[in-house]
């Protein structure tokens, strides 16, 4: 019983990583994802890794089942109960037009049609005081309609429930009694922040996915138990922590970014291993690149997350803590094209797996980033995916020629340009999570994962002037690796506006203490073992402002002066100025509780001997740094302690890493490739 298992179900593959907590040995299993029966893919990956479920002490699971149910609209028939006068909040939304010049623009259609949105009398004010009692009799027509139309889940969102959840709870009890077997979600159970549209949307989406997730998690537990698993299953939430299956069933919307969050968490733990508390994380896949920032060892979370959001589409808000990830349409499959104004653009359209890049030889005609990489000789056509997919350089060249000819650009010139453009897009995304939020990339290491991360990382790191670039081993299963290291996490927040000058430390302490009790009780209830710890933070602003800055509280007793000083400093860092002397408000108090860390197993030490010989040499276009002949190494043959100057190409079965001229490579004991930029 010493195995800690982590499984990550992706679109194509189900990954599994098994950590042996005694020996530190790591085993990897990969199986095809089985969309019709997802638990089967997990069992297949267990088999592929040669692991016995009977020896597993804990299984951590990340899943795309929530995001898939949402984006494919395969959730439950859902109803919504709201305060009288507010039936249409879900449809009105915020009324904005992100595509402001499009005069036939479309709003996100609501997940609950108008016929299933019901009102109940009863009114609370901003302080949580009851102005008019709740009229539960109003629910009768709603109950009747739900029965008649076969409604499968109900969401409840009443005005000001962040300050007064009791009315929502009473509605829930009444509905549960009247509609047995129909799960009921209350908005205040998911968030205690204000803005009724955002809270309604959160409650509705939770209800919408709940029956699907119930079925899925039930099946997963049953199948794993039948396969011999006796240990608890824990589920990765969007905040990067884990929760019990029971809690995941009640609030499944908290799993919406389960997989990506685990990758960010993995980057944080890798940083810890390397003694680097500040990490920029980049994951490049076939269609998108994701970036996130970790400061002082903690991933940043936000409650301003939206699904299906695009710069030109409002999407649907989900007000639960989600690891702050910026995702852009830039990956290996991203297609290069010429716009009306005569500029070459890359993405966001992707050739995906079918037909795939032109060089796959499956009928793709548009040049993609992968085609450009092949034309630049970054990729070896005979060793793509370890030689399992043979690439066709001639097809890549033809595709590049077709696009480049009208511009007078030779295929190699265009390839070089495409790579620089896609790098620039990724730089913008990395700057969004760093420079834009007042961080200096020079204080960070860049961790690159995914099939494409290692190919771009050295160039991006140089442009951003990060301290160094780290390419972990198994970067193709990095999210699963991160999951294996996650810990239980519960977040709680309370919107309550307090002027700091007028509040006593005792008053603040009482608010935080109550949240801490809530959080630790929840952790204990769901079976988190080990030493629990809590972190406090506060959303703060100058009086009159609306948007707040999240200020972590220093450990120890609350000091108003210290909180204020930290706020002024953070405001200056983010926005170039502070208003010291102006009244400061605390808007929302946050507590995050953690249920004890999984210890990172010491990896088996790599041999420190041997001078690996390059498996070959080739002339590679290092985008902005020009064309150079580079030694090509097999990653698995590199011993710990290996050092060499760039230019270098390091290949393994899942990816190709570059070390540019002027940079140098070092392989550490854990097998990380460390690229030093100077």
């Amino acid at each position: 019983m010493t195995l800690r298992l982590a499984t990550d179900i992706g679109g194509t593959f189900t990954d599994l990583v098994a950590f042996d907590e005694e020996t530190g040995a790591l085993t990897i299993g990969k199986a095809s994802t089985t969309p019709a029966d997802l638990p089967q893919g997990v069992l297949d990956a267990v088999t592929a890794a040669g692991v016995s479920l009977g020896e597993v002490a804990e299984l951590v699971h990340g899943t795309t089942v929530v995001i898939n149910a949402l984006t494919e609209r395969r959730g439950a028939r859902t109803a919504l109960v709201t305060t009288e006068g507010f039936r249409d909040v879900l449809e009105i939304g915020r009324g904005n037009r992100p595509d402001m010049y499009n005069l036939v623009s479309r709003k996100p259609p609501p997940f609950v049609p108008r016929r299933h949105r019901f009102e109940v009398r009863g009114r609370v004010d901003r302080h949580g005081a009851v102005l008019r009692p709740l009229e539960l009799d109003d629910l009768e027509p709603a109950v009747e309609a739900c029965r008649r139309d076969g409604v499968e889940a109900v969401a409840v969102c009443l005005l000001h429930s962040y300050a007064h959840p009791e009315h929502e709870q009473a509605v829930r009890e009444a509905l549960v009694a009247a509609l047995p077997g129909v799960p009921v979600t209350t908005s205040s159970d998911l968030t205690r922040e204000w803005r009724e549209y955002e809270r309604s949307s959160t409650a509705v989406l939770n209800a919408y996915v709940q029956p699907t997730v119930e079925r899925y998690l039930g099946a997963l537990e049953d199948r794993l138990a039948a396969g011999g698993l006796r240990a608890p299953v824990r589920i990765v939430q969007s905040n990067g922590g884990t929760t019990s299956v029971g809690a995941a069933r009640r609030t499944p919307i908290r799993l919406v970014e389960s997989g990506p969050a685990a990758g960010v968490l993995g980057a944080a733990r890798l940083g810890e291993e390397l003694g680097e508390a500040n990490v920029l994380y980049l994951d490049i896949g076939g269609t998108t690149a994701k970036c996130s920032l970790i400061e002082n060892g903690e991933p940043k979370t936000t409650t301003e997350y939206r699904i299906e959001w695009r710069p030109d589409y409002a999407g649907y808000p989900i007000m639960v803590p989600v690891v702050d990830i910026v995702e852009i349409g830039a990956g290996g499959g991203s297609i290069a094209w010429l716009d009306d104004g005569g500029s070459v653009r890359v993405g966001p359209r992707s050739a995906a797996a079918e037909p795939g890049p032109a060089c796959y030889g499956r009928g793709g005609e548009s040049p993609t980033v992968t085609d450009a990489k092949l034309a630049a000789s970054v990729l070896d056509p005979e060793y793509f995916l370890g030689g399992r997919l043979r690439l066709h350089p001639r097809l890549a060249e033809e595709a590049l020629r077709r696009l480049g000819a009208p511009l007078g650009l030779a295929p190699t010139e265009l390839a070089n340009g495409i790579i620089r453009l896609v790098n620039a897009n990724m730089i913008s995304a990395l700057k969004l999570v760093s420079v834009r939020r007042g961080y200096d990339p020079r204080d960070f290491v860049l961790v690159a994962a995914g099939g494409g991360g290692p190919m771009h990382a050295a160039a991006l790191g140089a442009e951003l002037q990060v301290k160094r670039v780290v390419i972990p081993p198994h970067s193709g299963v990095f999210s699963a690796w991160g999951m294996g290291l996650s810990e239980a996490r519960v977040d709680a927040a309370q919107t309550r506006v307090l002027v700091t000058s007028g509040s006593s430390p005792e008053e603040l302490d009482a608010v935080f203490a109550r949240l801490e009790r809530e959080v630790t009780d929840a952790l204990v209830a769901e079976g988190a073992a080990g030493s629990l710890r809590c972190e406090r933070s506060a959303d703060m602003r100058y009086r009159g402002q609306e948007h707040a800055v999240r200020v972590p509280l220093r450990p120890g007793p609350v000091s108003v002066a210290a909180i204020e000083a930290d706020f002024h400093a953070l405001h200056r860092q983010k926005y170039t100025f502070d208003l010291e002397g102006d009244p400061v408000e605390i808007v929302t108090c946050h507590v995050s509780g953690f249920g004890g860390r999984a210890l990172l197993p010491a990896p088996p030490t790599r041999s420190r001997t041997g001078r690996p010989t390059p498996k070959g040499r080739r002339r590679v276009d290092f985008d902005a740094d020009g064309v150079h002949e580079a030694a090509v190494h097999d990653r698995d043959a590199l011993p710990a302690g290996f050092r060499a100057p760039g230019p270098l190409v390091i290949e393994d079965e899942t990816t190709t890493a570059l070390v540019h001229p002027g940079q140098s490579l070092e392989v550490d004991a854990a097998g990380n490739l460390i690229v030093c930029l100077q």
Partner: protein
Amino acid sequence: MEERFDPFAVEILKDKLAAAADEMGVVLARTSMSPIVYEVLDFACGLTDAQARVVAQTNGLTLFTGTFGPQVESLISDYGLDGMREGDVFATNVPYRGGTHTCDVCLVKPIFVDGGVIAFAVSITHWIEIGGAVPGSIPPDATEIFQEGLQLPGVRVYDAGHRSEAIVDLIAANIRLPRTGLGDLNAGVAAVAIGERRVLEARERYGLELVLASFERVLEHGEQTARAALRRIPNGVYRAEDVIDGDGVSDTHLPIAVTVTLGDDWIHADFTGCAPQAAGPVNCATGALLSACKTVVRAITAPDARSNDGFFAPFSLTIPPGTVFSAEPPAPTGWYYEGAAFANDLLWKALAPACPERLGAGSYTSLCCSYVVGRDAETDELFVLAEPNVGGWGGSALGDGESALIATTDGDTYNFPAEVVEARFPVLVERYELNVGAGGGAGRHRGGFGVVREYRLRGGVDAYGYGSIGGSERRPWAVGGGDKGTTNYLEYVRGASVERHGRVARVPLADGELVRSITGTGGGFGDPREREPERIREDVLDGYVSLAHAREVYGVALDPRTLELDLAGTAALRGG
């Protein structure tokens, strides 16, 4: 673009300029102290080159699409590039100098390299209060700009890096909410400082020549994109007429008209024949008219591209001076967005037949902005609750019109959550729902619905309401046999009486009295009798269309008890 520049480096820089503008906007919204800025996002930020041509702009208000250029130009003509100093920030809000109304304060920071101006960073923010006759500064019955608050004719708020305390004191002394106003000043200055920093970083990294080349490339790219799109639209001369219903001083309808000529790759709009400038403040000056037109030019050419002045190179405009769309001093322009909205809608109406994929039937048009002002009994402070309202859009070839969407003259701007309104102002929001009861807008693709929004005053003292809402008599136009949309208006419920208004200067409100904003349905597209009966059934189930309306307007019969489709009855109603 000249050959000696690396084309990809220029493309990369071009994107960096857009990112810089976005970042300016984030800083402004996040630090502002005014709900109209941080919640509604009534602002814009951007960069121009040294010749006042916009090279990057945030999303935000469409009506700021065309004002940056003329505003920066007016500063250049006042001071000359040589007369500006590093660290200067200028403030301008004068409508006749490229601006909109006095509330929109534009801050401009020249960006210097080696002692010369290479670009300008610009932010424009709707200040909730700038003095004048009423709190909120836009009296609906103003007859001169002097009733609309303080004019800032391109004054130096920062002089070579030092804040001009004399100017700041002058501003603070003349506005009713100085803390909020100066908060917006801080936010705007922070935004232009970020813009400057990013341009200078780009210059550091890529060199001045490449930065300047990227400015040229941005503009060339915009122009090329717009011309390519115009070539796909049929040439022709298109004309539209309409009225503005009332100017705030009188209810008289003001006639407006436009003749648009579409050439191969150019477009010209001639607004000759519009009413002379009005006594009341629905006038706009030519800067705002230009913005209103540019929005439509963008809509029919490249709605999804980032904004820059290159897009407008193919566009030209004729307007005689002194009309309702080309007001001259001292005409009031406080509600300029009413005039601008009608100008925008007029051009849209003219072009709709030429661009059916891009332009549908008419929308509710007016921003439907309602003000409630007074003192908050709890804090004894002045409050100014100003809120644009969302409304119904017209049906189009692509489908039904959207419901509850903000008017064309706004853009990526948001409504106020009821919970935030109640936390900030002494009101209860009692109702916020779709205005499905108004009918209208029937069509094969029907118009979207407006909203009904109610505020009940709760803990307000010396309060009154005002507003200037267009379309209270004139209804949104339809296309191809559709039904016209419905009207927008305000209702004040005081005791037993309900007063209905379009443009109203002052309605006293006692505690417990109620203000109701009602916005209309958009125009219909196509014959209602061609709408699929099954969709009408869905509309009835959702309460969008009544049974009677289904029968009478759409010719669809439903069983009144089960709401099942009555196919025979429908066939009979539709004549076979």
